[in-house]
């Protein structure tokens, strides 16, 4: 089958923080387009992987960026020796064969690229391939999921109103400290008590969000720190490597953050 390689075989670890699984299932039952909002690395991608596994659907993921054109999503004619050949883009693939299509960081895509998803998000549930004069009716299993980071200074990068309103939304934040410590402990293999300290480092960095940092440490970064600690790196050094240095090049902020890390252990 066309999407075999997009199937998720093993359960991705996901620790729910609320009723997001039930809400997503309700939305999926109607194939309602869903938007996952939340800061970088707080678990949106893991969540959708988990849901795809749970619902038994293949998952087609597209990481959006500013160079992404409508053709990159939809498909294009390729010039081959024997003439032009049409090749479905990832979105078309998901539409035709019934996958969850996950557009990660959709605000990074140019606003005019995202309008190609509009016909998929209303009753039409169809994708017009203008360049081919084809109207692809969506497979009954197809569902569109986008993710986006409302971030600080969100006016600069925001979805168009006409796009936003087509989605139901689930909000993700950093998990509560206890849950996040569970996740860090589970994923990195360090002791829960130590994991709580690592999570405290994460909180310190998130306090700087909008105060010089665009983002605080993601759960993913904390897991990285945990793994370094599990390999025998000293906690402060591990946090410096996995959290402080990746987050900022600003010497003042680095100094402040390093000092705050010191307060955590």
């Amino acid at each position, binding site marked *: 089958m066309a999407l075999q390689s997009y199937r998720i075989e093993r359960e991705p670890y996901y620790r729910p923080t609320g009723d997001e699984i039930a809400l997503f299932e309700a939305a999926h039952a109607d194939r309602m387009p869903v938007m996952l909002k939340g800061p970088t690395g707080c678990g949106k991608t893991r969540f959708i992987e988990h849901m795809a596994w749970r619902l038994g659907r293949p998952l087609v993921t597209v990481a959006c960026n500013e160079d992404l054109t409508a053709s990159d999503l939809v498909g294009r*004619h390729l*010039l081959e020796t024997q003439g032009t050949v049409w090749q479905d883009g990832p979105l078309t693939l998901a539409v035709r064969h019934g996958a969850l299509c996950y557009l990660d960081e959709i605000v990074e895509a140019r606003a005019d690229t995202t309008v190609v998803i509009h016909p998929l998000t209303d009753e039409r549930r169809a994708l017009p391939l203008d360049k081919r004069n084809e109207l692809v009716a969506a497979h009954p299993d197809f569902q569109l999921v986008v993710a986006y980071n409302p971030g*600080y*200074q969100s*006016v*600069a990068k925001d979805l168009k109103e006409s796009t936003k309103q087509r989605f139901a939304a689930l909000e993700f934040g950093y998990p509560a400290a206890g849950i996040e410590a569970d996740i860090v402990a589970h994923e990195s293999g360090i002791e829960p008590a130590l994991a709580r*300290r690592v999570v*405290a480092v994460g909180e*310190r*960095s998130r*306090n*700087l969000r909008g*105060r*010089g940092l*665009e983002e605080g440490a993601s759960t993913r970064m904390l897991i990285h720190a945990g793994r370094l600690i599990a390999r025998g790196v000293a906690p402060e050094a591990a946090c410096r490597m996995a959290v402080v240095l990746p987050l900022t090049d*600003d010497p*003042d*902020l680095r*100094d*402040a*953050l390093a*000092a*705050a*890390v*010191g*307060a*955590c*252990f």
Partner: protein
Amino acid sequence: MESGVALADAERRLKAYVAALWGIDPPLRPLPQDGDPAAMRPRFDDALVRLPAVWPGMDLYRAALAHVGAHRMFSRPWPARGLKPLLILVVSLFEDARVEHLAMRRLPGLRRLWAPFHRTEPSASLMAADLMERMARALFDPAYRDGNAWVDKGQRLFFERPDRWDDPDFSLMLGGTLAGDLGKMRVQINARGHRVEPPYRDDNGGLWLHDTPPEPPRDVDDPLDAVRPDRIEAEQSDRRDGPPRSLPRPAPFAVADAAAMQPVARHPEWDHRIGLHRPDFVRVVECVPERRPMSDAPDDRRLTSRVHALIRHAVVARPERLRRQREGDRLDLDACIAAAVARCQGHAPDMQVYQRVRRRGRDLSALLLLDASQSTNDPAGDGTVLDLERRSADLLAGALDAAGDRFALAGFRSDGREAVQWLPVKRFGDAYDEAARGRLAGLDGRWSTRMGAAIRHAGSLLAGQPTLRRLLLLVTDGEPSDIDCPDPRHLVEDARKAVQELAGRGIDVVCVALGGDPGTHHHIFGRRNVLAVDRVERLPGLLPAIYAKLTG
């Protein structure tokens, strides 16, 4: 104290540090330097934190901020009325220990930060100050053994009940007990001159509410202005002009450089009651702002680079596809086909078969006009509304300059119809250089807001610009008003009329409103052309985004 660290140099790091630790953002201000620097102790209230301007080291500053932050997290100020000074001192001692232990529960590393400052050792001294310093250490470090009965009692009572540390009344209770004991010991205490030890700890002022502020500091009214360098100048000019600056109208043009002022235009004003323009009713005077050093507030580099990217992106966002190019990043399919066809038909093919995308600048002139009236001196964020306007304008102007957009920048205010001041910062032809930034820094807020005249004058400047689109972006915190206009509606209608006149000349007018009545702004500018920024502090980030959105 030349070997120390200056607060000014460390401020940004320290602000980030206290924010990271406690999620709070208090402004940091230097203590007035009017005594022995070694005796100075931090002070805080719910508005700001004051620290010595120079201190031996970063760790002392950090220890002080970690301590103040712990108070802000775990202390609630008590009313001081009727309490004896000794009681206040001893309760504060327990409170300091209590909040530090709570902080260390959450952030155990703080122990390593604070411990080095607790250096006092057991001694036989019975001076109150010594006893209290040793009590501070005993309450910080359960392993410390003093030997003095009073200190030991305090330490024992405190560490017996860690379960009660969450309760501020625990400090009141223990402090009451131990202050009583100390009273009975007949030790001499100089409560007024008492100096808190160790030095990272604040002077306890933030822990107690006094009905009448203890020393009426002049900064109470205006905590943020109090210590800024230009304060002195402002005060001097106030003194010179007599009435305090809160009065709406100081003598006109007490400005430094009167020579720089010259009448440049007269404009009509609209009288809505009679439905007619009063011709040449208003005189516009050009007054080039004095150059000042740009504010010392360190630039937020990340914001700056974001803004530059945003503007650059907006400016060039309109891609233009050039087809049939000799070189390019993509094949032009149509040209390829034409070439193939030509070849099939035996013709020499045209090899211009590439396409490339050129991003071109927009055909636009923008004038950014800042309200520089008295009300922009209102506090906002860390400074005043005008500070934020200035900072936003600087950010935007830097980005526009870098991106090559055609723009001008000016301020305006008025002091009656014969004195509408136009304060040019950068003209259309000029570069946005250090001189322009200096003029921007020199903008100050005075007098009133005769908006219509400013709009008309802006219109006359924009009308001469050779671009297709012309945009006036007006940033204001209020509504039209002037001293010679008792009827508020008059200037509103005049401004509305002025906007319509500009619209008639093909000039878009957009208002960024930092305050004032939305209804009035909608009336003047039209609903779609008002962008209300509800939190003034967000202006620096928003203004460039607004510009990009308007013109992108």
